[in-house]
């Protein structure tokens, strides 16, 4: 009998990049044309996996924002709001189909620009983004059915500001319902991850969507502020940090602008003693390490019932050893690069705080690339509710683990947070799940799974996690008067 050698490594398998088309420099997409920024300023967009420059993107100033809003207003009044809804649907379907045709290119660019593993951008981000367009395209000519006994009216011009963690997907979440409801859009992607939104602008251009219906402008916080403060914008939709969300809320106070905010979170993932433990461990891993933990609804606070805590932590540590951290373009990679240097520093800061607080740290001893921004999957045990690392959003692959004794205790602890975006419950018993889900103050609650998204399912938070819902009919209603 031939004895096999036991050591077996997977082959590195880098997704090809030769098929993608990136310009050296991207202008602003305003009124269906590519326009130079009035300041003539550009910033570099880099690949966080190796710190190499990918392209230059324009830095839009107030006057560029004004131009974009004017174009959006004109398109709203003259074309989009008066177009037959069934015609609007055709355009949105067309965008969805074109995105599918460019799926591979979009996935690779998403991974290059943001650092997320190709497996995720290919299997999750891009298909979901397409599905959002398909889903809302279907509603465009059925608004009266969606909201019966109502006079259906669009709002007008929507200013939309999106974050860097799911660049294309967030653009889809924002643009698709706005268009379906008959609004026009000025969208600003995050400065570190604008490239897929700009590719989407190219797709929109190719779709023949009337000029000005979607305008995509890039830039920093001042560009975003100019959108928020522009007097001719009717609705602000923002996804990002709670700090910026509060600034926006203040800025629009006293104006006619409608606002929806999807902000931070520190979501509780709760494992009861009768849970399917091995699947719960998977859910914990998926909850905190998906997209390097750059997920607003990440299950970053783990609560494990004390009777099974040792076993769960042991199994979690074991499972973490089989995570592959490294080049995001490698199909084997489970955890890619941290999105930016700043974010890496934030994560490192919190990990130091955790150590100083006396929490016990466990990190996977895997190798990570020398260049680029990477952080090893990390968990902290021996954490208290009052530990800083258990209260504040870290937005990285860092999990805190707390134990609890009774169900009432864990409900109290899970709700004891300024945030309320999401939660997870793991139990084999349906009645327990319903008991918890009815008492947890969180916008999205998953039972025996985590980080599942669907265009038909509304998403949004309680308390400092924001207000307003995106996805499903709720998300459509946010774009109607």
């Amino acid at each position: 009998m031939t004895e096999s050698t036991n050591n077996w490594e997977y082959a590195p398998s880098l997704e090809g990049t030769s098929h993608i088309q990136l310009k050296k420099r991207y202008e602003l997409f305003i009124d269906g044309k590519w326009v130079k920024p009035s300041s003539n300023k550009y910033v570099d967009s880099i690949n966080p996996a190796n710190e190499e420059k990918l392209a230059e993107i324009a830095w839009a100033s107030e006057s560029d924002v004004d131009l974009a809003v004017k174009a959006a207003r004109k398109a709203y009044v003259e074309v989009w709001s008066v177009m037959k809804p069934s015609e609007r649907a055709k355009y949105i379907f067309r965008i969805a189909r074109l995105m599918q045709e460019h799926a591979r290119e979009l996935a690779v660019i998403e991974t290059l620009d943001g650092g997320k593993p190709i497996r995720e951008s290919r299997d999750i981000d891009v298909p979901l983004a397409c599905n959002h367009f398909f889903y809302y395209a279907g509603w465009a000519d059925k608004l009266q059915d969606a909201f019966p006994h109502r006079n259906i009216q669009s709002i007008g011009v929507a200013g939309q500001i999106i974050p860097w963690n799911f660049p294309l997907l967030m653009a889809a979440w924002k643009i698709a319902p706005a268009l379906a409801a008959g609004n026009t859009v000025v969208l600003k992607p995050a400065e570190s991850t604008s490239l897929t939104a700009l590719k989407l602008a190219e797709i929109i251009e190719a779709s023949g969507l009337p000029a000005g219906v979607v305008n995509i402008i890039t830039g920093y916080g001042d560009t975003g502020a100019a959108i928020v403060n522009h007097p001719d914008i009717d609705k602000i939709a923002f996804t990002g940090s709670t700090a910026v969300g509060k600034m926006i809320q203040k800025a629009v106070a006293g104006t006619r602008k409608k606002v929806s905010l999807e902000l931070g979170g520190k979501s509780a993932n709760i494992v009861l003693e009768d849970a399917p433990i091995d699947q719960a461990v998977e859910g914990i891993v998926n909850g905190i390490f998906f997209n390097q933990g750059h997920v607003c609804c990440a299950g970053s606070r783990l609560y494990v019932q004390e009777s099974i805590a040792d076993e769960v932590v042991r199994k979690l540590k074991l499972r973490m050893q089989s995570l592959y951290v490294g080049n995001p373009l490698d199909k084997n990679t489970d955890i890619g690069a941290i999105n930016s240097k700043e974010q890496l520093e934030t994560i490192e800061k919190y990990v130091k705080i955790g150590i100083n607080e006396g929490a016990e740290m466990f990190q996977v001893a895997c190798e990570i690339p020398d260049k680029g921004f990477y952080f090893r999957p990390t968990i902290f045990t021996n954490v208290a509710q009052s530990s800083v690392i258990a209260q504040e959003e870290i937005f990285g692959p860092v999990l805190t683990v707390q134990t609890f004794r009774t169900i009432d205790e864990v409900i109290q602890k899970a709700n004891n947070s300024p945030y309320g975006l999401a939660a997870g419950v793991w139990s084999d018993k349906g009645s327990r799940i319903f008991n918890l889900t009815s008492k947890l103050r969180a916008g999205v609650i998953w039972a025996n799974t985590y980080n599942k998204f669907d265009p038909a399912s509304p998403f949004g938070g309680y308390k400092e996690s924001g207000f307003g819902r995106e996805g499903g009919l709720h998300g459509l209603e946010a774009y109607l008067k």
Partner: protein
Amino acid sequence: MTAQKNQFSEVPLSPTIDKVGVEERVSRFQTRSIKGPSKLQGLSMVLSMIDLTTLEGKDTPNKVRQMCYKAQHLHDFQEGLPTVAAVCVYPSMVSVAREALKDSPIKIASVSTAFPSGQAPFEVKKIDTQFAIDAGADEIDMVISRGKFLAGEHEFVFDEIAAIKEICGTKRLKVILETGELATLDQVRRASDIAIHAGADFIKTSTGKIQPAATMQVTYTMLMAIRDHFDRTGKMVGMKPAGGISTSKLALHNLVMVKEILGEAWLSNEWFRFGASSLANDVLMQYMKQMTGKYQSADYFMID
């Protein structure tokens, strides 16, 4: 045997299993990239882990002899290929296989205990097993009494396995759960825990006579039982998915799963086997494709 007897009361509680979660986990094993040298090594490993099987009512000595030749000569045109791990036959064919394999290191596995249904008196099952061992079997693949198991008589199932293990002595015992008849993953897990604690050296999914057989979900569930047992006791138990694994791709996905759940210590035919009748030739075709860059027709790979 001097080892202390295992007690049914010592079988630990089995964890609950969430099928949706298992499906999700399993799908991740299928996205690992196996190509180039990694694929070649994987394919070679698969070949060395095969229990080349014929379990038909129409089996004859000549059929078994031909299969035994194939087991030793997988594809003589290619140097450096391993042989399969074992041949797997009915008890009545063990002596034929023994004679055909002579002093080859290839093991002879015999099914027993009224395979495949297990619906025979206990005494008959014992005789069946003893007969196979006397005829020269190195390994025994027994079936559990699924009827008893589903009726809730778990202790009966436990005792039966323990008794057969006693007859086996140092011969390795594989316990077939016939997961296609157990229906839920919770039952698969319970049966795995019972078999392991009753003394199974290997746990095996299926007879090959019932569909579905060795799905990745089922194998995953059984691997987790082995994992938990190892973590609790430090003792390794082997795994044998059987039935339905007929392509290289599926076999490699299984190896990925073993590597990531149990670790590389299990990546040898001492601890992992494939029960299969048609897998070998698909692996050989893929192997030759890797070596030559060209796909050859099935007519260049001999069936026996």
